[in-house]
């Protein structure tokens, strides 16, 4: 069981003891093998993305910059298809971060949440839980983007530069 530091600090002594006991019996992580899988599968997904991008540039008349959006859209569509077929989650078991870090993992997290909570209804289940896993990424990304942009706008003119 993976807990964050905030969650760990809130545990009672009994719960802490149990975590320690559970940690002793946890199978050892095969770090080298996980890293190899993450590199290979993550790189593979990016290479597929490169292929889709070339296809858009070659046949649909996009250029290097504008091909990015349709490429991401197609990869999300593929990821959601494979999530619905149940293939992506089995692949994710092995690939670890290699399947989670590319944009396909983001779509997989949202689609899994939607399917998982479908039985609770469309509004409270699907609508309410859609961002359960993907939410932190959007919240932190948006806040960080605002703060960094503000800092850059405020600081760059001090050095005589342009923001």
């Amino acid at each position, binding site marked *: 069981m993976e807990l964050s530091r905030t969650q760990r600090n809130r545990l009672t002594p009994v719960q802490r003891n149990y975590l320690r006991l559970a940690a002793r019996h946890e199978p050892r992580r095969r770090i080298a093998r996980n890293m190899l899988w993450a590199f290979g599968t993550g790189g593979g997904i990016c*290479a597929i993305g490169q292929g889709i991008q070339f296809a858009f540039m070659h046949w649909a008349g996009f250029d290097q910059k504008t091909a990015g959006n349709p490429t991401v859209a197609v990869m999300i569509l593929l990821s959601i298809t494979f999530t619905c077929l149940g293939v992506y989650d089995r692949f994710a078991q092995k690939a670890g971060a290699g399947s989670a870090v590319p944009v396909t993992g983001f779509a997989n997290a949202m689609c899994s949440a939607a399917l998982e909570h479908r039985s609770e209804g469309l509004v409270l289940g699907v609508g309410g839980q*859609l961002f359960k896993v993907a939410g932190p*990424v959007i919240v932190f990304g948006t806040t960080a983007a605002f703060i960094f942009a503000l800092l850059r706008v405020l600081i760059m003119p001090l050095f005589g530069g342009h923001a």
Partner: protein
Amino acid sequence: MTRWEQWLDLLANKPMWLMFVLAFVVGGAICLIGQILIDVARLTPAHAMTTLVVAGVALDALNWYEPLIDFAGAGATVPITSFGNALFHGAMSEYHRDGWIGLLTGIFEVTSAGISCAIVFSFLAALLIRPVKN
């Protein structure tokens, strides 16, 4: 041409096979960093993802992410770090066009394709698909 100049020439006008190799290596390396954050630094996957997104924002704020995209193509645009890069990029480009309000209106300008796409298709999937009980 010396061998060194040949390498520089290859990198300057990359043939198609080299773009695939670079996308594979750079994209794989970013995923490798994510795996290290989970396995070695012992972060939860959610913490690892947020760390990578904030790193993408910070790299773009330093003007380092765009050169990476020019270098590695999809290897830099497919991983989640490019989501942070796109958020920051939207905010800055609207700031240059519309002034201060652009910092807020521009954040989702570039990423809206990805987010809308994921929301719409996930919802449709939940409408159409019944999970198999096992």
